[in-house]
């Protein structure tokens, strides 16, 4: 045992030195720039290098597949057409409602009923989910994440090695680095805001709280290696306004808040989130609701209105869709935020799926799993567009205003503007349901017919 001692101490020394070096690098290259808001441009170089590697990998796959004469799978993750997730009953009701406006509770057969089946038929002809799509011509660029590619078995040894290297880098180098950064960011946020909370109210406190928030969000952005391009920054939200954006993942908050000063709105959670929320509100006024208060729409509207009317308070950040959407479409905006009567600053956020899919499917992954997935991707690349402010015109109501804002956001981000409620995401339309639909339809018509003939 004594023979190993000098060797032991050598190992310990080496470990100590490397950790110190790592942390110094961390501090110099990431944390200090985050505090002052400058950037060395490391992430952009990283992104360009990655792209070159991806292109090479894609070429290798195509060449390999051609040699072995296998057709490649080109997974259209979302299909090529936007299928609205509505049920038969709702659609038929909607069709009839827009028609004669007759009583909806007695569905009789109407000429318009044929629409639903006609459209569904054409949709399946255009794009069938069951049939896989083969594409020999060009493959989307593979980003070395096996979770996004089904052609994995057709690659050469060189590519496998590269992929293995990628896994090593992502899990053993990037992941610990990112976790360390995230940890630093969150703890700085909590301690910073608590400390600022002790200061007396005034300009100094406001200034410090804004900058503490900003600094910590910037560190978190680097923790995710998020490469964000902001467009039209002159339209950024001002005090007394409401900032409205489309929602793809919880990261949206960090992305927006690292480029501006916002007041957050949300429900108080327990655990770590709760600690963060309680600390944040000490430094500057955010709008947090208890779980019981969330249901009371008038209370919510009143508190938001109070906040907005006070011009010294920061603009509110709201995601009106209410849930995360997969970043190809914009679903119905809930009208609550649009009734308040403040200036609305729309923001469109669009993620580049090449580097990692940022969509949070909350029915599939929990928050922690999702964050781990994000931290083990290469990077998160997105674009943010600040659209010019909008106000509600006198002749439109809240719903029309909401739809107008939604269309503007969808158009800017290149997303499809869908009418239906994002809440439908959780209710999957089952496959067996398709067969039931015919039976359901006929039951609907026949049932009411019998009712009528009986009465």
């Amino acid at each position, binding site marked *: 045992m004594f023979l190993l001692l000098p060797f032991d101490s050598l190992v310990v020394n080496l470990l100590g030195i490397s950790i110190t070096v790592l942390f110094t690098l961390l501090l110099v290259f990431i944390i200090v720039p985050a505090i002052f808001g400058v950037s060395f441009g490391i992430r952009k170089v990283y992104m360009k290098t990655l792209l070159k590697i991806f292109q090479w990998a894609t070429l290798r796959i195509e060449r390999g597949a051609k040699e072995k004469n296998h057709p490649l799978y080109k997974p259209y993750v979302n299909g090529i*057409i936007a299928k609205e997730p509505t049920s038969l009953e709702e659609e038929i009701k909607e069709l009839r409602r827009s028609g004669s406006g007759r009583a909806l509770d007695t569905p009789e*057969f109407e000429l318009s009923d044929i629409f639903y089946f006609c459209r569904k038929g054409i949709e399946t002809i255009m794009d069938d989910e069951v049939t896989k799509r083969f594409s020999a011509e060009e493959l989307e660029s593979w980003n070395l994440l096996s979770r996004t590619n089904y052609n994995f078995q057709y690659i050469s040894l060189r590519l496998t090695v590269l992929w293995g290297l990628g896994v090593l880098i992502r899990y053993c180098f990037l992941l610990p680095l990112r976790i360390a950064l995230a940890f630093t960011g969150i703890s700085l946020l909590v301690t910073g805001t608590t400390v600022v909370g002790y200061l007396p109210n005034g300009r100094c406190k406001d200034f410090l709280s804004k900058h503490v928030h900003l600094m910590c969000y910037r560190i978190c952005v680097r923790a995710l290696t998020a490469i964000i391009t902001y467009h039209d920054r002159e339209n950024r939200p001002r005090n007394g306004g409401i900032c409205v954006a489309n929602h793809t993942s919880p990261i949206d908050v960090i992305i927006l808040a690292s480029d501006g000063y916002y007041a957050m709105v949300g429900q108080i959670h327990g655990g770590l989130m709760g600690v963060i929320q309680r600390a944040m509100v000490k430094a500057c006024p955010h709008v947090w609701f208890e779980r019981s208060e969330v249901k009371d729409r008038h209370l919510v509207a009143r508190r938001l209105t109070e906040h907005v009317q006070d011009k010294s308070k920061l603009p509110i950040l709201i995601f009106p869709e209410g849930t995360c959407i997969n970043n*190809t479409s914009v679903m119905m905006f809930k009208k609550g935020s649009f009734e308040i009567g403040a200036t609305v600053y729309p923001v469109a956020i669009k993620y580049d799926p090449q580097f990692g899919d940022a969509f949070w499917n909350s029915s599939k992954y929990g928050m922690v799993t999702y964050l781990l997935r994000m931290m083990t991707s290469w990077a998160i690349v997105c674009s943010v567009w600040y659209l010019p402010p909008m106000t509600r015109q006198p002749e439109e109501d809240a719903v029309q205003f909401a739809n107008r804002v939604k269309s503007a956001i969808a158009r800017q981000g290149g997303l499809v503007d869908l009418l239906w409620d994002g809440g439908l995401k959780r209710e999957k339309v089952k496959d067996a349901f398709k067969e039931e639909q015919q039976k359901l339809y*006929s039951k609907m018509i*026949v049932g009411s017919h019998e009712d009528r003939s009986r009465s």
Partner: protein
Amino acid sequence: GCPQGPRPVTSVLALAVTSEQIEHLHRRFKQLSQDQLTIRKENFDSIPDLEFNPIRGKIVHAFFDKRNLRQESDGLADEINFEDFLTIMSYFRPIEMNMDEEQLDRFRKEKLKFLFHMYDSDHDGKITLQEYRNVVEELLSGNPHLEKESARSIADGAMMEAASICVGQMGPDQVYEGITFEDFLKMWQGIDIETKMHVRFLNVDTIAHCY
């Protein structure tokens, strides 16, 4: 089938879809036709989801209906090529923001004409009671317990209502021949089909180029 001479490509250009979307549709066409230049009715059997659709027959028929293919002659084509395929798809394109009143009206008429042809299976320009009954029976065919009588009476009731909208009060010995296209248009007056009868493409090519 008889060889078709070259036709002007204006119908394709009027589609107002991007070249990327045309590429997608072309790939789909090749898949359905199994790499041939034309599609026949049998090729639609390879779509499993279509089996569940009660008016499957009518939809497939619509693809080969020469009236929908904007050909002068009448009847059914035996096979269609890619341009015909696109022509049929163009009936389902969504409205664009910058359409004026006249364009919207023409748009609407086109879509309604497509539907009219679906009902009018003998191509005589009128939807007779028998044809209406056919459609209702097909739509309700998913329910095996449904008696033919019920379907028939539903169709009859609906037809009577249609007659009352189109012709108003009929005398006791007046016979309602069938719904013509003008009457058909009248029935759809309030209904906003332009926004319902379309299929939207996802904008797969508008990934933000952030670099």
